[in-house]
C-alpha cells in the first residue's frame, strides 16, 4: 500500500499553493459564527418560553373535558346529573365554534357552577330521575350573543309543546326511531327561537336556542344580540336526538 500512500502524499504536497487562510480571519469568522449561534439559541429559547407561557395562559380556559368520556352511573341523582350534564356539554360544544365563549345563564340565587352545562335538578320525588332537569348557557362568538336552553322532564310520553303558539313561524311534528319530535321556530319581538322537543316513552327532552344572551324570564322582553339564534333548527334537532339523554 506504500505506493498509494506515496501517490496521495505527492498529490497533496506537490505544487501546493501558499496558505490562503489567515488565523485572524478564521478566528474572526469563528467568533462571529459563535455569536450568531448563541443569538439563535437565545431567540429559540425565548420563543419556546413565550409559547409555553401562552399555553399556560390559554389552555386552562379551553374545554378540559371535551375528549373525556362521560360517566355512566345513574344510581343517585347527583350521578345522574353529572352524566346528563356531561352528555349535554359534549353535544352542545361540538356544534359551536371552538373560540365561542360559553357562560352559564344563572337563575336568581344561583351561583354559576364550574361547568356551565351542570344541570339544575328541581326535585319532584325521591328517585334519582324524579326531578325537572334544566339549564341555560349564553354563547358569544363573532356574530354576537345567543343562548341554548335544555329542559328534561322524566315523565311518560306527554307530547311536545303544542303548535299554534303566539309568534309561531314554523311548527311541525316528526316521527323518529327515538320518539316523536316537535320542531318549532318562534318570534318574540326581535328574538327568534328554535325549539325542538323529543318525546320518548320515558321522558321529554327539549332543547332551544335563541339570539339573545339574556336569561329568559316570564314577561320580560329580551334584546336581540345577534342576527340569528346561536344554533340552527337542524342543530337543535340534532341535540334533541343526542344519544344518552335517557334514564
Amino acid at each position, binding site marked *: *500500500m506504500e*505506493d*498509494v*500512500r506515496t*501517490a*496521495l*502524499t*505527492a*498529490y*497533496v*504536497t*506537490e*505544487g*501546493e*499553493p*501558499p*496558505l*490562503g*487562510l*489567515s*488565523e*485572524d*480571519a*478564521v*478566528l474572526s*469568522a*469563528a*467568533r*462571529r*459564527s*459563535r455569536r450568531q*449561534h448563541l443569538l439563535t439559541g437565545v431567540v429559540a429559547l425565548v420563543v419556546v418560553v413565550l409559547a409555553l407561557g401562552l399555553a399556560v395562559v390559554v389552555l386552562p380556559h379551553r374545554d378540559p373535558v371535551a375528549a373525556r368520556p362521560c360517566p355512566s352511573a345513574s344510581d343517585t341523582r347527583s350521578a345522574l346529573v353529572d352524566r346528563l350534564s356531561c352528555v349535554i356539554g359534549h353535544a352542545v360544544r361540538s356544534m359551536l365554534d371552538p373560540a365561542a365563549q360559553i357562560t352559564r345563564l344563572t337563575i336568581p340565587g344561583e351561583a354559576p357552577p364550574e361547568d356551565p352545562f351542570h344541570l339544575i335538578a328541581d326535585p319532584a320525588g325521591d328517585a334519582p330521575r324524579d326531578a325537572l332537569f334544566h339549564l341555560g348557557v349564553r354563547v358569544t362568538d363573532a356574530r354576537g350573543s345567543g343562548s341554548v336552553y335544555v329542559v328534561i322532564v322524566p315523565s311518560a310520553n306527554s307530547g311536545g309543546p303544542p303548535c299554534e303558539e303566539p309568534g309561531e313561524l314554523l311548527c311541525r311534528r316528526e316521527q323518529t326511531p327515538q320518539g316523536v319530535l316537535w320542531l318549532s321556530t318562534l318570534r318574540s319581538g326581535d328574538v327568534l327561537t328554535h325549539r325542538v322537543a323529543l318525546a320518548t316513552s320515558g321522558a321529554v327532552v327539549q332543547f332551544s336556542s335563541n339570539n339573545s344572551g339574556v336569561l329568559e324570564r316570564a314577561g320580560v322582553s329580551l334584546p336581540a344580540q345577534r342576527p340569528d339564534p346561536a344554533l340552527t333548527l337542524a342543530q337543535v334537532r340534532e341535540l334533541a336526538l343526542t344519544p344518552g339523554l335517557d334514564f
Partner: protein
Amino acid sequence: MGASRDLDFSEYFAARVQRFRRVAFAFCGDWHAAEDLVQAMFVQLYRRWRRVRPDTVDAYARRILLNLFLAGRRTSGREYVTSVVPERESPPGRDTPVRLDVERALADLTPRQRAMVVLRFLEDLPVAEVASLLGVAEGTVKSQTARGVEALRAVLPAPTAEER
C-alpha cells in the same frame, strides 16, 4: 477565559491548518474548496472548543471536516467572509501527468469511497476508525478502499525492479 480560549485555538489552528487543508484537498480536489471546508471546520470547532477534550480534538476536527465534505456544505451557500482574496496563480510544474492521473482516478470514486481512501492512506487511520467515522461496517471500508486502491494503482507508474 475568552482570551485563553482564543490563544489555545490559535495555537491549534497554526499547528493543524496545513494538514487539514491537505486532507480537505484530497477529499475534494480543489484548493479553494479545500480552504472553504477547512475554514468552516475551524468555525464549527471554535463553537465547541471549550467542550472538546484535548486528546480527541483531532478526531473531532476530522469528523467535522468529513461531514462538511460529505454534506456538500461548500455548495450550500453558507460562506464566511475573509480579508484574503482566494485567487492566486497555480505554481509552475504543478500539473504533472501522474498527478493529473491520480486526480482523475480520485474523481471517479464516489465521495464516500474517496473519503475512505484518503482517511486510510493519507491520514493513516485504522480500518475500525474509518468505519466509525463513516458509520459503516469495517468490511465495507475494506471492500470500498480496495476498489479505490485498484483504481489508483491502475494510473500509477509500474514499480521498478528495485521498488519491487
